[in-house]
């Protein structure tokens, strides 16, 4: 059952986003803060899904784009008093530019070499930032943007909506087929005419753009940018965990993964402090061992009726 080629997954996600649109009015602020965080992690999950989920190139240092976005908003708001929403756009733009520049070089590496190169870049970025007094060095940048939950909420909501639409658009058409071919066998994909290098760069650019936008929102909500927190590899690990658990490459997997990883970790952050990463790590190992395609991928494989519904 498809309407204009759009399936149940599309309308399901759309309905969910519409629900999220009105939800802040139905609940007290404290709930909105949980939702903001949930959407923030969802945005990160969709971001890394573009490159790692779709092509299998593990962007282990993906946090670098989050950091770039955070510093874009931090510095522009701090020095030029730029409106935070414009700061988010700037973060997205810089995320894109850096991803294209970095990807041009690192996407030539394959497998573990690519993953290592991204970690090296993330570590280098942290050390560069620490040396730059303009960016506050090890002190970071403290902003005074105030408590703006609705602006935060609808900005990150908009980012997630864009990511979902683009992911769905890619997955259902020609691009998605070519990308799956790349993930399966890059050289064979090239030999049937797929422009492998351009497609990989396109996806890496998208993932940098949205990680940058997400990072900017992160700086905005925390009203500051602090180097060790911002460039923390924990973010990279969480992003990977979310798409692995949810289902790599799919349109539904990232938000599912974000819910499964974030909501319990909210509990662990407040109640069972310190156990969050242990639990996530354990969950990833179990998933990778027993259902490597994640929740969505496994449901699709197990059930013919769900195969059509879940994308």
């Amino acid at each position, binding site marked *: 059952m498809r309407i204009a080629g759009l399936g149940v997954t599309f309308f399901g996600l759309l309905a969910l986003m519409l629900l999220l649109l009105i939800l802040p009015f139905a609940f007290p602020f404290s709930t909105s803060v949980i939702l903001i965080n949930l959407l923030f992690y969802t945005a990160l999950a969709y971001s890394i899904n573009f490159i790692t989920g779709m092509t299998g190139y593990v962007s282990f240092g993906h946090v670098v784009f989050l950091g770039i976005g955070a510093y874009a908003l931090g510095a522009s708001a701090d020095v030029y008093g730029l409106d935070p929403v414009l700061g988010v756009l700037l973060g997205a733009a810089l995320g894109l530019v850096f991803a294209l520049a970095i990807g041009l070089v690192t996407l030539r590496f394959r497998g573990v070499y690519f993953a290592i190169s991204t970690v090296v870049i993330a570590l280098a970025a942290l050390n560069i930032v620490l040396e730059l007094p303009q960016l506050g060095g090890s002190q970071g940048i403290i902003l005074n943007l105030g408590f703006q939950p609705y602006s935060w909420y609808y900005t990150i909501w908009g980012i997630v909506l864009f990511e979902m639409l683009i992911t769905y658009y890619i997955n259902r058409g020609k691009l998605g087929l070519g990308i*799956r071919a790349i993930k*399966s066998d890059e*050289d*064979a994909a090239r030999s*049937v*005419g797929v*422009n492998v290098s351009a497609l990989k760069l396109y996806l890496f650019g998208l993932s940098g753009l949205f990680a940058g936008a997400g990072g900017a929102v992160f700086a905005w909500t925390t009203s500051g940018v602090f180097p060790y927190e911002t460039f923390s590899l924990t973010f990279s690990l969480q992003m990977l965990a979310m798409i692995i658990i949810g289902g790599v490459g799919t349109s539904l997997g990232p938000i599912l993964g974000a819910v499964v990883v974030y909501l319990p970790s909210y509990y662990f952050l407040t109640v069972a402090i310190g156990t969050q990463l242990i639990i996530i790590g354990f969950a990833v190992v179990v998933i990778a061992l027993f259902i490597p395609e994640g929740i969505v991928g496994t449901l699709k494989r197990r059930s013919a009726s769900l195969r059509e519904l879940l994308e």
Partner: protein
Amino acid sequence: MPTLRTEAVSKEFGGVQALKGVTISLPAGSTLGLIGPNGSGKTTLLNIIAGLEKPTSGAVMLGETRIDHLPANAIVKLGVAKTHQIPRPFAEMTTRENVSVAVMYGRRRIKDTKRSLNEADRLLSLLGMDARRDLPASSLTVQEKKRLELARALATGAEVILLDEVFAGLSSDELRDSIQLFRKIRGEVGFSALIVEHVMGAVLTLAERVVVLEEGAKIAEGTPDEVVHNEAVIRAYLGFEENDSPG
């Protein structure tokens, strides 16, 4: 449909001369066999034509267009496709999706998913693989994977198809079937074919002309009949000295 030519193509790998000024010509619609002992440079020549490797010197021309500096995916879009010697299906994708990728990204650049799947189905039925179309490509037999290679090459809309040992490793029954199938496809889809084999049987049956390589150099060219009676070829294949009498 353009003529494919290599002009004095040479290739050096770290001091080893893999190809020494090889010139071949594949006129539109023709079938050229390329044979030679193992390590004679056949696959290297094919890879250079397909854009997987760059020649050290010389040129590859498709009609009036020089293609040897282009990346492999661009050469496919100009209408030259190659099959892999060891099949490389997109294992996780179904057979028809495998073919569909080639339909969409090949020379014809069909954008619509439905049309491309229909075209994939048409080609798969031409190759007698209807029953396999919804199975993951990883589940196919070796022979079926070889056919899938051919299906993908055809699906790109190629006018020139480079066949790298598609007839190797088949039983004699399978070989006979494959040769018949190849003739049938040629009857329905027009393309020129460059067939590389180190077993001669299929090439001698299908090719109008045959080029023989030995240690990177062209040592003979002619009709299959001329080539099998050529002394240099017999020597290359069987290692006879000039004064030895065969048998």
